[in-house]
C-alpha cells in the first residue's frame, strides 16, 4: 500500500482555501494550504505533494507561473486549476504546460474529486 496522498491547496482567497481543505478532509484526503505560490515553492518537502490545486490569478507568482516553475524544477506533480479566470488564453497556456484539469469557479465538488482521483491514481500508478 502506497503512502497516503498529500495535496497542496494554493489560493490567495482564505475562504476558498479553507473550503477546499474541508472538502478533501470529508473524503479522507490530507491537504496543506498556502496563501500564495511563493510560500508553497519555498516549502521544504515540495516533492512530498501528490497534487496541486491552485487558482490562476494570484498576487505575486500566479498559477500558470507556479506550474512552469514546478516543471522547471523537474517535478511532474499534477496541477489542477480552479479559477474564475475563464479566458481561453489562460486555459490553453495551462493545458499546454501540462495541467491535469482547468475547472471553473464556482466549482462542482464532484468534478474536482473526480479529476483528483484520476491525478492521484496516475501519480501512484
Amino acid at each position, binding site marked *: 500500500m502506497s503512502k497516503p496522498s498529500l495535496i497542496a491547496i494554493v489560493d490567495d482567497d482564505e475562504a476558498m482555501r479553507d473550503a477546499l481543505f474541508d472538502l478533501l478532509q470529508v473524503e479522507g484526503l490530507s491537504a496543506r494550504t498556502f496563501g500564495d505560490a511563493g510560500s508553497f515553492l519555498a516549502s521544504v518537502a515540495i516533492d512530498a505533494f501528490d497534487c496541486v490545486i491552485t487558482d490562476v490569478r*494570484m498576487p505575486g507568482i500566479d498559477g500558470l507561473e507556479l506550474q512552469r516553475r514546478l516543471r522547471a524544477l523537474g517535478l511532474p506533480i499534477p496541477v489542477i486549476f480552479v479559477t474564475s479566470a475563464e479566458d481561453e488564453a489562460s486555459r490553453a497556456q495551462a493545458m499546454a504546460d501540462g495541467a491535469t484539469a482547468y475547472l471553473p469557479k464556482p466549482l462542482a465538488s464532484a468534478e474536482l474529486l473526480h479529476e483528483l482521483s484520476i491525478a492521484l491514481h496516475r501519480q501512484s500508478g
Partner: protein
Amino acid sequence: MSSLLSIDHSEDAADAIRAREMLRHDGACWVFDISRVRWLIQAIAAGSRPLNWVDTLLAGTVTMDANANAVHLFGAYAGRGRMLGQPVPAYWPSEGRNMVADLIIGAVTGRSRMSSRKLRLKSLVLRDPVLTAWISDSGTLPDTVFLSIVAEPVDDRSFWLLRTSEERYNNLIHHLPFAFLEVDSRAQAEIFDELRRKGMRDIAAYLDTNPEDILRAREIVRITDVNQSAVHLFGARDASELVGPVDPLFAASPETARRVMVNHFEQSRNYSEIMKLRTLDGRLLDVSLSVTYPTRPERLDVTLIMLEDITDRLRTEAQLRQLQADYTRAARISMLGELASSIAHEVNQPLAAILTNAETSLRWLSRDEPNLEKVAQLTTRISDSARRAEEIVQRIRGMTTRQVPRPIELDLNEIVDEALLFVRHDIGTRSIDLSVRLGHDLPNICGDRVQLQQVVVNLLVNSIQAIQQKGAARGAIEISTEQNEGAAVTFSIRDDGPGIAETDIDHLFNSFFTTKEEGMGIGLAICQSIITAHGGSIHAANRPDGGARFWFSLPAYG
C-alpha cells in the same frame, strides 16, 4: 456782375447779423422766419384776434436755425434735424406756446423791440427761465425773429447738460433690453418716516405683526412709467396698462414685496433677488428683480425697478445640470464596465466558497454518523462568505443607483479602503505591488461617500492602466493619505507607469480628453468636477524618477 456781388455781400451780411444776434443771450436760441404769417401778425396788430390764432401763427413760423442748447432742450436724440425747416409746434411742448406767440407778435409789431417774460415750463428742468423774443435792430432782416430761453441765474451750461443727460437717460431706459419701471414710493416713505418718529426700529418684526401694511403698500406705491421692454415682459397692450399700483408685480411672489419694503425702510441703496412674476397674460416667469431706491438729492419720487426675464436661462442651467449628472452617471457605468471582470471575480470568490462548503456539508450529513460539529463550522463559514458577497453587491449598487449626492461627515481612509475593494484583485493579479500608507488621526471631511469612492477608484484604474501601457513585468502603486499644513486632507497616488506626456499635462482634466482607447480618461474630468464640488482641488504631475502622481486635497470638516 456787380449786382451779384452785392447780393452775395448782403447774404453774408445777413448771416453775420444772425450769428451776432444769436450770441446776444446765453442759453437756447432759435431763429424764426415769420414771412408766411406776417399777414396774421398785421391783422392782430390791427386789433383782430382770429380763432386759433396761436396755432395758426406757430404753424407758419419756420425754424431757420437753432443753437446747441436749443437742440438739447427740445431736440432730443433727433437733434437739429428735428427743428430746422420745421414749424414751432413740431418740437415745442404744448406748454408755453401761447407765450411764444405773444412774444413774436410783440417783437414784430414793435410794441417793444425786445420782449421778455418769465416762463413757467414744468416740462423743463430750468430754474426761473426767461423767454425773450426780438428782431435785429439792423433793420435788414424784417422777417426774422430771434427767440432765446435763458435760465436765471445764468448758470453756464449745467441746466442744458442736465437736460441733455436726462434725455440720454430716457433714451437709454427706453431702449434697454431690460424692463424698467419707475415707481413712486413717496407715500410709503412718509409712512416709514412716521413709524420711525414713533420709535419703530425693527421693520421685519413690525411687518410680521402688521401684514396688512404690506398689502396697503402694494396699493399706495405706484408705477408711474415703464419702458417698452416692460410692456413686452408683462404681456401688456401698452404702458398705460401697467401704470398704477405695484400690486400686480408681486402677485406671484408676495414675500418679495415684504423684502423690498424692509430694504426701503432700512434705507438700502439697492435690493435684488430672483422672483416669480405672473404676467398680465397669465405666464409665470422667473425674473431677476433689482430695486434702486432714491436718495437725496435725487428725485425722491423715482424708485427704479429693473426686471430681467431669466426663465430661459434658469431652464438652460437646469438642463445643463441634468446633462452633467447624466453624463457623470454614464461615465460611472462605463467605468463599471471596465471593472466588471474585477467585480465579477470579487463576487465569485465568496460564491465559490459557499458552494464548496455547502457540498462538503452535504457529504458530512450523508455519512451514517453525520459530523454535526463539522457541519456547524461549515455553515458558519457559508454565512460569512454570503455576508461578504452581500457587502460587495451593496457597494456596486451604491455606485450604480442614481442618487442625489448626500454630503456627510466622512473618514477619507475609509473611502480609500472601500475603493480598494474594487481594484484590489486587479492590482494583485497584474503583478503590481501596492503600498498603502494611511495617515493616522486625519480630520474628517464632508462629502458624498459614493462620489469620493468613485474618484479614488478612477485614479486607481488610471494608474493600473498606465502601468499596463508601459508593459513592464512588474509595477508599483503607492497610495497615501495625510493631513497637510492647512486645514486639509490629501490623498495621493503614485505609479511607475510611463508618466504623463508633457503636451497632455495641461488638459488632462478636460472633458473627453483621453489617451486611451477605452475612454477612461473621461474619468479624470469627472474626478475634477467631483473634487471641485467638494471644495477641493486635484492635480497631476510627473515624478522625477518616472511615473505619474495624482493628488487631491479636501477641506477638513468643521
